[in-house]
């Protein structure tokens, strides 16, 4: 597709459940980022992939959060044992390594009841 695609756009789940959020990047973009945006806040960095490998996962809040990008294209953010504090919009962004410009998807809004 022409842009970054994220699914689902909205996800409502119950506390303790497992959630997967998917990101389809712009074709050819090797760098992929996950950010989290809470209400009234700017996006906060979670993890960065260069190709298939996680080059920097320093923003993942705890071990309930995990992300993969097995073929260097689509990425999945996985959240185990969800908590109400995980409620936020999860943003995926891709780019080429050196330009600095990131292309963002519209986000997946996660609500944990």
């Amino acid at each position: 597709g022409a842009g970054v695609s994220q699914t689902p756009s909205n996800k409502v789940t119950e506390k303790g459940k497992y959630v997967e959020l998917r990101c389809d990047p712009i074709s050819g973009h090797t760098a992929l980022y996950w950010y989290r945006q809470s209400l009234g806040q700017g996006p906060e960095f979670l993890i960065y992939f260069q190709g298939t490998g996680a080059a920097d996962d320093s923003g993942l809040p705890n071990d309930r959060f995990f992300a993969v990008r097995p073929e260097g294209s689509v990425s999945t953010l996985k959240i185990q044992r969800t908590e109400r504090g995980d409620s936020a919009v999860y943003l995926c962004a891709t780019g080429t390594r050196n330009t600095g410009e990131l292309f963002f998807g519209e986000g997946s809004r996660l609500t944990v009841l």
Partner: protein
Amino acid sequence: AQSVAQPEDQVNVAEGNPLTVKCTYSVSGNPYLFWYVQYPNRGLQFLLKYITGDNLVKGSYGFEAEFNKSQTSFHLKKPSALVSDSALYFCAVRDWELTGGGNKLTFGTGTQLKVEL
């Protein structure tokens, strides 16, 4: 560490008047600086960036930003505001001496711009 401050939660301006959205930053090295805009129910869109070179950077939709190293600021400006400019604006920074993190950006908390007739 890198950080960004956007001191104004909201900026109101009349259509046709100039607008300024403020941003200050902190990095240990030299900065890459960015402005992004977020329209309701839309993804963040890139407006402009400063890497090196001229301190005045021009971007999309008639926006520009001025890099001021001594004041560690990167304010967003537009000579004549439009109602359609109403949106949420984010300033972001990356320390270019930060290695291994790709283009890992630190964002400010955002400034809501409201342009009225």
